[in-house]
């Protein structure tokens, strides 16, 4: 069914990665008639391969290639080889994501203007604003079937949501509902509605949740303009003597190296692999890494301010039943410095099964204080805190000085220190989250530390001026005009919202731009 393009076809757009950014971009380009090859490092699993099994799916779909960590974040201590909890498979982390699809707020595109100079933070305004993004947000919401947009009803609230809602009402919060979720609340786009299975992080068994794996890529393939090559790990992007990218070197499933020629290359490997690939593609013309004249490739790594609050109650909750993240309080996402920090955070329902709860409630903890909490597993409610963290130039993805992967390429090190603003915001979130549950009669509450990063952002940031970042307002690199970045690494700042909707919206907008520039022969 799927078209095959030749390795020597130099008319194709090569997209590296098939997640929210790459999967959407590649599909949209194909729909516009552009010949596109997606190179995906992971395997292709389909919905029948998913299982409601936390560790089983973790082993099957996670990006587990060797990485190192440094910095004062607790992940570096508890999960030193696993800085990020993301997916290596066709569909990328849209297999694993929870479905929360929120637009940025107006001020969040212009935080340098609104927050001013924050010591230690490398703040910058985005070169785009909410008004410019609104039509793209709307298009993405329609395409993904986001609830509470385009006349799509919200999902019904599960037990975990009902606890959150009661607490929100008790505290006087005004904005609590079952979220804007890219999960069908009624059949749409050839997919059924949510069956309240739970296990959203393990791949949606009913395909009610939008994923590029089954919601986008097959549509692109059906045009005859898209080829997806799984098990294809890109090692290097090559350029010609004029400094334009010309081909991509990758290793196939057997480790054989192949060279795919390209007219345009779009990097969408998530915020750790994308800068790593650019840094590993250095040459005599680009000695500090491809598209890195600013020195900003790999810098300003953001992971969102996160944390969780779990609580136990006298009576059963069964939070594991139903949609994992269909519940939100948005009242704290405002920018209001009277709370002691800039920016804001969302509070979203979250549950883990017993296997993951034991590993993540308080990593490394043991003894009766800890085990007695797990004894109350089915009496637990939980929420995730996700807020804007400060970009810091010293938080970065760098090439490890000595450790190499199986192809002889330097592995990435992920360095992260919390900014004082991140810590102040997290403490506020812990306090408010506990207050929500205390108001409903919680017996104990648990301020749970951040998990390995699911939101990896900012390492190829978008900037108006070439010296401040890596890509321009289209995601086109400042240094190489036929090289684009198409994932969350282009985020100038992180905002308080889950990033996927913005990644998809930017990818749709970028597809439009690339197709237009190609037809004008500008690239």
């Amino acid at each position: 069914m799927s078209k095959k393009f030749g390795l020597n076809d130099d008319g194709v757009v090569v997209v590296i990665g098939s997640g929210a950014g790459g999967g959407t971009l590649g599909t949209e380009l194909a729909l516009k008639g552009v010949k596109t090859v997606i190179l995906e490092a992971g395997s292709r699993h389909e919905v029948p391969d998913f299982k409601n099994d936390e560790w089983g799916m973790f082993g099957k779909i996670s990006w587990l290639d060797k990485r190192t960590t440094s910095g004062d974040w607790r992940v570096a201590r508890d999960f030193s080889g696993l800085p990020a909890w993301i997916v290596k498979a066709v569909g990328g982390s849209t297999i694993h994501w929870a479905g929360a699809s929120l637009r940025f707020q107006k001020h969040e595109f212009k935080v340098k203007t609104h927050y001013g100079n924050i010591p230690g933070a490398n703040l910058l305004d985005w070169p785009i604003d909410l008004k410019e993004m609104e039509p793209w947000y709307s298009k993405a919401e329609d395409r993904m079937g986001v609830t509470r947009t385009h006349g799509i009803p919200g999902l019904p609230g599960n037990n975990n949501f009902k606890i959150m809602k009661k607490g929100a009402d008790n505290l006087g919060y005004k904005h609590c509902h079952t979220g804007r979720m890219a999960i069908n609340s009624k059949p749409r786009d050839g997919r059924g509605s949510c069956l309240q299975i739970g296990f959203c992080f393990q791949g949606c068994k009913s395909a009610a949740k939008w994923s590029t794996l089954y919601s986008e890529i097959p549509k692109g393939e059906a045009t005859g303009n898209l080829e997806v090559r799984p098990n294809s790990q890109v090692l290097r992007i090559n350029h010609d003597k004029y400094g334009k990218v010309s081909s991509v070197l990758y290793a196939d499933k057997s480790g054989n190296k192949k060279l795919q020629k390209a007219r345009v290359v779009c990097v969408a490997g998530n915020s750790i692999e994308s800068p790593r690939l650019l840094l590993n593609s250095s040459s005599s013309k680009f000695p500090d890494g491809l598209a890195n004249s600013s020195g900003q490739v790999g810098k300003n790594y953001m992971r969102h301010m996160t944390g969780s609050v779990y609580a136990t109650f006298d009576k059963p909750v069964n939070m594991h039943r139903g949609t994992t993240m269909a519940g939100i309080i948005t009242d704290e996402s405002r920018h209001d410095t009277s709370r002691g920090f800039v920016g804001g955070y969302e509070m979203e329902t979250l549950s883990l099964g017993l296997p993951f709860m034991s590993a993540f409630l308080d990593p490394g903890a043991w003894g009766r204080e800890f085990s007695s909490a797990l004894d109350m597993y089915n009496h637990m409610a939980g929420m995730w805190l996700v807020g804007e963290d400060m970009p810091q130039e010293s938080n970065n993805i760098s090439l490890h000085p000595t450790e190499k992967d199986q192809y002889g390429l330097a592995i990435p090190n992920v360095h992260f220190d919390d900014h004082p603003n991140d810590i102040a915001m997290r403490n506020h979130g812990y306090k408010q989250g506990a207050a929500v549950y205390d108001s409903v009669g919680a017996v104990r509450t648990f301020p749970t530390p951040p998990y390995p990063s699911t939101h990896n952002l900012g390492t190829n940031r978008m900037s108006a001026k070439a010296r401040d970042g890596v890509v321009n307002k289209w995601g086109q690199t400042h240094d190489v005009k036929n090289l684009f970045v198409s994932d969350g690494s282009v985020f100038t700042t992180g905002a308080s919202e889950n990033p996927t909707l913005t990644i998809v919206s930017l990818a749709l907008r970028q597809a439009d731009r690339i197709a237009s520039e190609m037809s004008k022969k500008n690239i």
Partner: protein
Amino acid sequence: MENKENQNKVSRRNLIKAGSKTLIVMSVLPTGIIVGKEKAWAAKAKSLKNDTFATLIQVSRDIYPHDKLDDKYYANVVAGFDAAAGKSKADKDLFENGLVGLQQASIGKYNKKYRDVGWETQRVQLLRDIEKTAFFQKIRGTLITGIYNNQEVWPLFGFEGESSPMGGYLNRGFDDISWL
């Protein structure tokens, strides 16, 4: 930071039965078979010493004590350590040497071997002293999956496991909370 906050938060709501006595009733028979209370379970050390095997069961329960869990679930995890020791001298040394150190500390502190120290808090103190060692972390890390990813224990915690074969919870109580 988070860790400290966590401790403060939990101690404020002190519901912890810190003094619980959960010494496992088990005996090592002359044949080397380790038998649990009322012969509810039995295990036999193949590579580790009998006393090491039996003591590791107690250590495992002390690390993640669940009064509702039968001893056999902890013994099963220790059987995995025994199997690992059979395949790897490094693993065998890790467990045997670790145990020697633990017993020495126990005798030094309480004049008793670990399995004869009657109070959980006293045994836990011995474990706190070694919690950064590879020996302790190997046991603790393995227990996380050995206990909590064992499907047999899930019903005892109220975790219902996979739901998609039953059609999810849409008609099976996803919103059945009744006490709010």
